[in-house]
């Protein structure tokens, strides 16, 4: 390639550079403020704390609680590939880098003889930004909040299936008793 072609190429590249690059300056150099000026204003930013939990696949009745109306039936996981399992997503923003924990409980006692256990069996992140810290032992649900994941900092798990915490549940109901009306399993961050 001749010298003239090189020059033309450089000119063309500079031309396109001018179109694509955002103009920037070093504003810390007072010498650049020729015929201009500089001024700062103080801004206040106030961000809300966030603590929201969701179960996937989506429950049609509620985003934050499972509603099971008939013991012995699987949770209404809306056609999950693995009945008996669901994914838990959360987004959490704490104040002053405060950590939080994730708890589960039932809103009313189970009928005599019925036992529901939950267990975190996996965690994953798709478009999320969180550090998994699950309690991996099986939990027998009661009206007392029990820890699912402890002491995590602000983050988000990613939305949908295959991201967040994979939770497996098992129901033992030897007496074939129905669940009470309004029964819920509650997940909450606090």
């Amino acid at each position, binding site marked *: 390639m001749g010298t003239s072609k090189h020059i033309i190429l450089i000119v063309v590249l500079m031309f396109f550079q001018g179109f694509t690059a955002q103009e*920037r300056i070093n504003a810390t150099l007072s010498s650049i403020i020729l015929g*201009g000026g*500089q001024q700062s204003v103080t801004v*206040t*930013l106030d*961000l809300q*704390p966030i603590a929201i939990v969701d179960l996937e696949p989506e429950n049609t009745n509620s985003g934050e609680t499972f509603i099971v109306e008939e013991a012995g039936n699987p949770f209404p996981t809306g056609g999950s590939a693995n009945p008996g399992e669901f994914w838990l997503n959360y987004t959490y923003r704490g104040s002053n880098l405060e950590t939080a924990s994730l708890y589960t409980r039932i809103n009313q006692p189970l009928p005599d003889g019925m036992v529901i256990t939950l267990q975190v069996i996996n965690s994953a992140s798709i478009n999320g930004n969180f550090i998994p810290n699950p309690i991996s032992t099986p939990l027998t649900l009661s009206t007392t909040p029990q820890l699912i994941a402890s002491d995590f900092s602000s983050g*988000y798990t990613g939305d*949908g299936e295959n991201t967040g915490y994979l939770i497996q549940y098992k129901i033992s109901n030897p007496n074939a008793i129905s669940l009470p009306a309004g029964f819920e399993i509650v997940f909450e961050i606090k």
Partner: protein
Amino acid sequence: MRTLLLYIVLSAPFFSTEAQILDGTLDVTGLPNFMQSFEDVIKEAGLDDSTLGFESEADANLISFILNPVLIVPSSTVCTGNIFRYSLYIHTENSPENVKISARTTSNSGIRFPASIPYDLLIIKPLGPRDLQPTNGGNYIEIPNDGTQAIKILEFVGCRTDIPIQFRIEASALAPAGVSNFNISYTIVGSVL
């Protein structure tokens, strides 16, 4: 030919005054308060809060730049006889991590100062009309939190007042909740071209 000569004579004062750029004063009014409301918070668990974002008022800051008086000559007269091109750059100082702050204005926003001058009547205006062009077509531009990388958000010709600046805040869930303070710095640079 006579018309051309007349034009050159009439426009000579404007060309001559551009030979040396004059000092002016940048004035920024408004103390933006970026308060996230409950409605501004992400509702779908698992998503980052930055996917939603929220905006300030359209005129969270008002920017004015007029040339300084020269002896007994008031700014309005100095601005009438001296036309320069100005670029406005912006950056933040000590803004929180994981918070993206962007700014914008609209095309030809603000008010010419003075509103009408002989320069506006020139057939060929040396620096073009006394208009304002936002960078990026008036779309939001991310503000760097680095004074060495201040970014241009608009340029205008001639003195101008009350240029509104609007902000967009995209705060990740990783940014701490609560109140924090930081600075937004404006730098205006004049040019004779």
